[in-house]
Each structure stands twice: as C-alpha cells, then as structure tokens.
C-alpha cells in the first residue's frame, strides 16, 4: 500500500502531510481494539475450569503449603481426556487445568521444587502429569487448552521473603516449564490472591506474608513477553492484563458490558482492551471436589451461559475432578443435558428462512469489500454490515412469510474495529404496523450479545412475530455487525 505524501510546513498542525488510502472504504477503528490473540481468545467463548490437586485429597479449598506430598494419592491415574470429552459435549471449546494452587503442589515433574507429584503417595500420583496429559488430550479432541498456575505459593520458602528469589528461582521457571507443554496454549490463568492474613508454611517459617505489588513482584510485563514469545496466542489472564475478571464468581456479566475497564460493566472510556471472563462453579460446593457435591441443573447452567457468553463475556465453568482423577458421572450427565439444551435453543437460526433482511443504511462499498445486510447472515465472521461515517443510528429489519415463534436475538460486533454500540432496542410485530418492544434496556453488544425476547434468562418462552426490528440508537461511531441470528 502506498501512502500519499507531500511535505508540509512546520505549523502547529502538521510537520508532514500524509493521507492513508482506504480503497475498501473500511471504517476507522474505534480504539482500543483487541490484539489478534485477544480476538482468538474471545472466540473460545465457553470453556471449562478443572480444579484438581492437593486440595482434592485434603477436603480444602486453600491449603497452607504444609501438606505432605504423600497425601496426593489418586485412586487412578488422572484422565484429562475424560474431562475434556465431557465438557465438549456441552459445547465447550476448551479448558483450563489447575496445575498448581496456592498450596504450591505441582502436578508435573518440575525442577523447581520437590513439592510435586514426583513424591506423591502412590504410583498413580507419581504417574500424574496434568500439563502433559491435558494438552495432548486437548489437541486430540481439537480443543483449546491452558493452565492455571498460582503465583502465590504457600509452600515456597522464598515467597514474600523480601527478595526476588521466588520469582527468579521458582515462579518464572515454572511458567516457562509449563509453556513448553505447548505453544498453542490459549490462556494462562494467574489468580490474584496475594497472601494477606492467611498463614502459610513458607518452607517451615509458618507465618503470614504479603507482597507490596503483584505486577512488580512477579515481573508481569516480562513474564507476559516471555510467554508470548513461546506461545504467541496465549492470553495472560488477571494480573497479565489481557483479559479481566468479570467481578463476581456467580456467573453473570453486566447488561452493559464494555470490553474496556473493570468489573461487571467495564468502562467505555478506558484506554485498554480488557474483555471480561466470568468464572463460575457448576457444582454446589467448592472449586475443588468435595464429597457429597452435586452439579447445578442444566437450566441453571444455561442461565449462566446467557448471562455471560450472551453479555460479551467468556464463561469458564468449573467442573472439579474427584479423587479418581475423573469427573463424576453426575457432572458428565448434566454436561450432556446442557449441550442438548444449547443446541435445541440456540441451534437453529431462523434468519435462514427469512423472506427478507434489510437495513435502513448501508455503507458505500469499497473496491474489494461490501457492507450489505447479507454480510450479517453469511456465516463469515470476516464480512460485516456497516453504515457510512457519521451515521450512528440504523435499523435492521427481518421479515418472514409466516408467523414464527422467536426466542432469542444474537448480535455480534466486528470488534476488530473496536466496540461501538452504546444502545439498541428490539421490537416485533405480527403485521408490520403495530410493534411491541421486546427487550428491556439493551445497551452494549460487543463480541456477542444474546437477548431473550421474553426478557428472562431463567425461563424459556417465545414471542410470535412475522417482523423483527433491531434499532441501533447510539454508537460511538458508525456501527459494525458481522452476525445476526434469530432463534
């Protein structure tokens, strides 16, 4: 591509005059925009969390680092393939396995500590290597994978001792050891817990320790750089600052949810792309397996799905393997039920049978790109509908030859050019004359927004209509959408 150049005068406005050609007439990005790896991460949408480790055998949620390695004694060699097959049935695209929790016990043969499966209590434990087996299973199943490794280490004598020893001798080497299990990792999960009043073993010191600043102490900028050099599409969650915690562990994101900022709603004005991830438990006890636990119902999990994936967040849903290193059958069953429910409710896109899909405004086509309404339903995430610059409002109209029962509307922005839409509404009509507003306040869209037309994420109910009208009422710049689906 050639830029058009001309030397200008050194005035207050210009040192240099230059115009960047735009033959395809693409809209200018609204910054911030996601990086390539953030885009790939967002497309994972729905994936599993597997909390397994020393706590599985001590009935704890947080150990204190003093647990004897011999307590880790699974009744079978843990089977990550079974975990991943089970969650794949629910439509999940990947998973993240805990390989070291705050107690410091490592589920792989690390060179950094003896507090690992190398000294487990039985042969099944000593044969355990979660990073190896989890990554291999994921590749076999065509799924994404990543690891949770706790920066806080209650076992290490070095953690919080006022020096860099823990980071240089333990934490960074551990992260690099884990990175070697695959350059195709999609996310590395760093828990934000940092000590406080929770007493730890700390190599026998048996005390409480804190650190002043996690980012500086763990040298997050250079850890991030290192991981990216080895695994270029691996997003560093939490303190890594490439994806944010959604602000609760109850499985919901804000109805307004910007991919910038913090917490459940984000912030339109923040300078950095930091999309939300919602971590939630699918079972009724802890993050780790506990005797007597049971999973939530498929309907409860579907509600969580709608309120996270359907609100511009990703969902990492926790299913804890038990002491045999497998997911309990009850979990496997509910995962199958959830997969069936998602397929039944969100599997048939009614725009495929629409008699017409039109928009009130369409951006002028470029040399090699159009922005027509047809791009909304062509199944191609790289084509999109847009309006001309300056047109920040528009309507999308869908019409069927016969009355349909509509349940959900799904919209996806072309976030490669930034998150733009601030507010929209959805209306239905039986005759094209009298319209009924279906959804309550609908604000942001982002990567994906699923709007229940009965205004309920808890109950499944439809609206009879022949006509559907989506009105974009406010946008930071011309709106861009790559997908519209109606279920």
């Amino acid at each position: 591509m050639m830029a058009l150049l001309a030397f200008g005068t050194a005035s207050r406005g210009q040192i240099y005059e230059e115009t960047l050609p735009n033959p395809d007439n693409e809209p200018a990005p609204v910054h911030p925009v996601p990086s390539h790896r953030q885009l790939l991460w967002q497309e994972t949408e729905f994936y599993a969390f597997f909390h397994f480790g020393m706590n599985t055998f001590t009935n704890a949620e947080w150990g204190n680092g003093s647990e004897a390695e011999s307590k880790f004694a699974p009744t079978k060699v843990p089977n990550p393939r079974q975990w991943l097959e089970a969650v794949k049935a629910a439509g999940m695209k990947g998973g993240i396995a805990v390989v070291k929790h705050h107690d410091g016990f490592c589920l792989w043969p690390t060179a950094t500590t003896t507090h690992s499966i190398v000294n487990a209590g039985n042969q099944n434990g000593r044969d355990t290597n979660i990073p190896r087996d989890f990554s291999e299973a994921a590749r076999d199943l065509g799924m994404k994978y990543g690891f949770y490794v706790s920066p806080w280490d209650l076992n290490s004598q070095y953690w919080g001792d006022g020096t860099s020893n823990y980071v240089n001798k333990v934490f960074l080497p551990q992260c690099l050891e884990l990175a070697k299990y695959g350059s195709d990792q999609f996310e590395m999960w760093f828990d934000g817990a940092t000590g406080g009043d929770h007493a730890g073993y700390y190599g026998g010191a048996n005390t409480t320790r804190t650190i002043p600043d996690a980012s500086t102490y763990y040298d997050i900028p250079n850890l991030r750089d290192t991981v990216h050099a080895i695994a270029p599409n691996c997003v560093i969650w939490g303190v890594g600052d490439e994806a944010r915690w959604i602000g609760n562990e109850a499985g919901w994101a804000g109805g307004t949810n910007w991919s910038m900022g913090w917490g459940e709603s984000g912030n339109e004005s923040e300078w950095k792309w930091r999309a939300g991830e919602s971590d939630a438990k699918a079972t009724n006890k802890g993050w780790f397996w506990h005797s007597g636990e049971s999973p939530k119902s498929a309907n409860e999990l579907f509600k969580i799905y709608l309120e996270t994936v359907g609100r511009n967040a990703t969902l990492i849903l926790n299913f804890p393997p038990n002491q045999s290193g497998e997911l309990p059958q009850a979990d496997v069953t509910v995962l199958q039920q959830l997969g069936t429910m998602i397929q039944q409710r969100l599997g048939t896109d009614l725009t495929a049978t629409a008699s017409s899909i039109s928009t009130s405004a369409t951006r002028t086509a470029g040399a090699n790109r159009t922005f027509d309404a047809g791009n909304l339903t062509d199944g191609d995430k790289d084509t999109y509908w847009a309006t001309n610059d300056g047109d920040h409002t528009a309507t999308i109209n869908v019409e069927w030859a016969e009355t349909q029962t509509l349940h959900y509307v799904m919209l996806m922005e072309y976030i490669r050019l930034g998150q733009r839409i601030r507010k929209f509404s959805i209306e239905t009509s039986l005759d094209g004359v009298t319209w009924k507003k279906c959804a309550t306040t609908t604000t942001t869209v982002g990567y994906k927004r699923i709007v229940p037309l009965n205004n309920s994420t808890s109950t499944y109910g439809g609206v009879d209509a022949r006509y559907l009208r989506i009105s974009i009422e406010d946008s930071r710049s011309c709106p861009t959408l790559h997908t519209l689906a109606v279920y």
Partner: protein
Amino acid sequence: MKAIYNIFTFHFSLFIIYALLPSLAVAQHITFESAEEYRSLGVYDTWEQSPFRTGVLKGSNYVKLMANPDMEEKEAPGVATNTSEMALALQRSRYGSNTFGARIDLKEPFSLGTSKKYVHVLVNKPADENANVMLIGLGKRHDWEEQAPETEQFWVTASLSAQGQWNDLVFPITTNESVDIHSFVIVPDLASPHLRTTDFIAFIDDIEVTDSPKPRYQIINYPLNFDTNQTPTRSDRALTKLTFTSTGESSKDVTVPTATIYNNLTEQATVFAKAGGSVTVKMTYKGGWMSGYAYVDWNNDGQFTPIIEANKPSSGSELVSYTYLSGYNSKGVAQTNGNSVVNGTITCPAFTIPEGTQPGIYRMRLKIDWDCADAGGNNTPGNLLTANGGAIADVLLNVHDDEVRISANQLNGDVLTPEDAALSDAPIPFRQPVTVKMVPAPDFTYTGIVITHGYNLDGPEYVRDNRQYKRVTIPAASFNKTTHEYTIPASYIDGEVRIEGLFTPGETFVH
C-alpha cells in the same frame, strides 16, 4: 543458581541467561538542546496493526526538533514556564491508535532497582486537545540477554492542568528490580482518533527522572499569597466558624482553628449540595471592616478563577459569592462600604450550583479579606490579608444526585442485599443507610468488607489535592452474627459505593 537458570536455556533458546548484572544508575535528563542526550527519536504505537508498525507510514516523518512555541515566563497558576530554545515536536497522526506517541531511546538504559521514581515531562498541546497524556516505558530484564528491549514495562497516565500551554507532568513509575528501561514513549492524546480529520502537533520537553513527586516548574494547586503556615498577626480579628446551608440539607457548622491564617479543612469538612440548589455561607468572625468571599473550583484545575462582569460573577466564575468587591456584592447590589460584619457574622449572598454540574468533588474556598477577588488573598502592600486579620479555609463540596450506585466485587463469596439480590450498580438513595449480607462460597467464611465510597473510584485517590474517595474496612465482628448483615452508615453513601467482600477458607455458616 546456575542449575536453575539452565532451565531457561535448556527449554527456551530464545532467552539465554547470564549472571545478574548490577543495576544501572544513570541520571536521565533530556532537554532536547543536544543530540548527545538521547540515542534516537521516533514514534511508537502499542496497536499491533498500526501503519507505523506495519511500515505503511514512516514514523521518523512525524517527529522533529523545533523551536519552543511558547518561551514566555508564566505567572498564571497551573502553567509551567519553559524557556528552552528547542523542544521535540510530535505530529499526532490520526492513523495511529490512542497510544501513538513519541519514542525517545535513551543514551544509556537505567534501572529503578526496588524504588519508585518519577518521570517529569513538559508537554504542550493545542488548546482544544485535552485528552490525558501517557508515559510508556520500554525495556527488558538485564539478565535475559536476547530479550528485545521493547517490552512494555509500564503505562502511566496524567491529566493536563493548562490547555494550550506548557504542562509540568509527573509520572510515578515502578518495575521489577531486574528491569532496565531503554526508551520512553510520550503519548500526547490518549483517546481514539476515529473522528479526527486532521493531525496536530504536541511539543515535549525536559524529560527528567527524579525521586521527587513534586512538579518542577508548575505553580501549585490552590495557591496562597502567603506562607501556608503563616500565624495571625492580630489578636483582635479571627475567623472561628463557617456555617453552610444548602437546599435540602440541614445546616452544617465547621469550626475553624485560629492558630494559622490558612486552614485546609478538606479532610474534615464536606458540604453537600445538588446541581440547581443554592448554598449560603456564614462566617463567624471576631472583628470588623472585612468582607467575605466564596470560591468553587468548578473545572477542577487547581485554581479559583474569578470572572466578574457588570459588577457580579458571570457564568463560569469560580468566585461565586462575596459581600463586597469594588462597591458591590455578588448579587450586583451596591454596597456603602466593605464592612460586612454584622453581629459577629459575615453572611455571603446565596449562590447557585449551576444546572448540569457533574456529580463529584469540588474544592471550595472561604476567605475573609478586604476588597479582593484574588483567592490567594489580598497581596497589595498596605492591604495584605495577613496584616488585615483576614483568613482562608478550604473545604470540599460534594455535588450529588438523588441516587448513587452501589456494587460489589469479590472472590469466594457474595455480598448481597438482605433479599439475596446482587449489588450490581443498583441505585440507592444518597446519604441513606444500606444493609448488606455476606454469603461465602462453600467452605469459606468472611473476615469483613472493604467499602470504597466517593467519586472516580478507578482513578487516583486525590485529584488536585482533593480526596475523591475513602476506603474503610469493616471487620466481621461488626456484622450481625445471626443474619450476617451489616448496615452501612449513611455517611458512607456519599457517591459511588463499591464493596469488596473479604472471604477466606473456613467453616461455612448455613444461611
């Protein structure tokens, strides 16, 4: 140590580790008067698809050393004086992202060690360009030989205090002790350029790394024309009390200490008012032949700027009320003289909080002086505030709506309403108590909550020396042991309210 570092070299040839180098302690001061002060100049953009990264646009065309556009000595508060001949000019390209900036490669890299440092930068942008400025540090670990020295080590923002003039910005920075900083990037316009049709030039000058957080040149916030600790020169005159009456609020008394002429009471005294409401200030004053003045820093620029037209404050004036100025009070009513003390009280005319004033914290100044609009005090020889028995006190003004928002974020449990509803930016009445309930996750218990309340909760705690919010920890012992509920006092519901539940492993109660 060698055995451990072999982990890196064995598995990852990209990073060859060698012995730790001592930290570099190189003084950093770049005035742009000599090319010897830096290694090279260019541009940088964090956006990976930036045309300046893909090579479509050439960054070196967008930076240039130019004559300083504004060498005048400045006396206006909030504005820095920069008399140097040359400055670095950056053309803010509309094709760069919100993090497009000038890159200055340092002559020698430097390490912060374990301490916090402060990067001082002079920045001058056109008057209508008021987006924040960002400093990005590029560098690498000195013990990772083959790591590129362009890893982004920190991002720090600062806001402008003077538009269209030189600003003396200060950026606090920290890194891991193993890190060397090789380059600075000054981002002049931390905003999306998608609506821009033209570029503009930002000037950058006098970059210095020091241990001091204080601006080097800029006149301080809310200046006085006398020493802050000045003691009274007269015993027959003293300001002892302020009484505020706002629409819809009960009267509020604030005691004013008399040991010094100036009292900063912003940590102790906040006046509440709503946009469109009126505020009246009475000053209890021992003495006579003095007048009262009230100021509000509506634009939060650290200054009180009077705008008096037709003998009264005009729109935007930050001198909002007075009993006497050049023969009139702030209602424009002619006054016989400036003796405003009646029965030991000076009553300033009521003033209105302008409609549309954003909810937030504003600095308010009350002054007893003689015929003077200067918020720093009469500085005219023969009528010095300090000699006349005048006084100045600063308080905060909280401009609020009828409702504020409350939210809760935490791990390993929930903080809910007593009815088990989530606190998700829910609207609640301003200055009314609110009850919350702790619901730990299974196998967890709670140790308390942290309540952050006020304004701009994601921003700095102080803006222009004005506290924006407070953070208070409520221990578990303060909760009802049966219901696990706690009622947040009305005084904490004074703006946005954010709750962080503190949960720790332990026996879960049955709720």
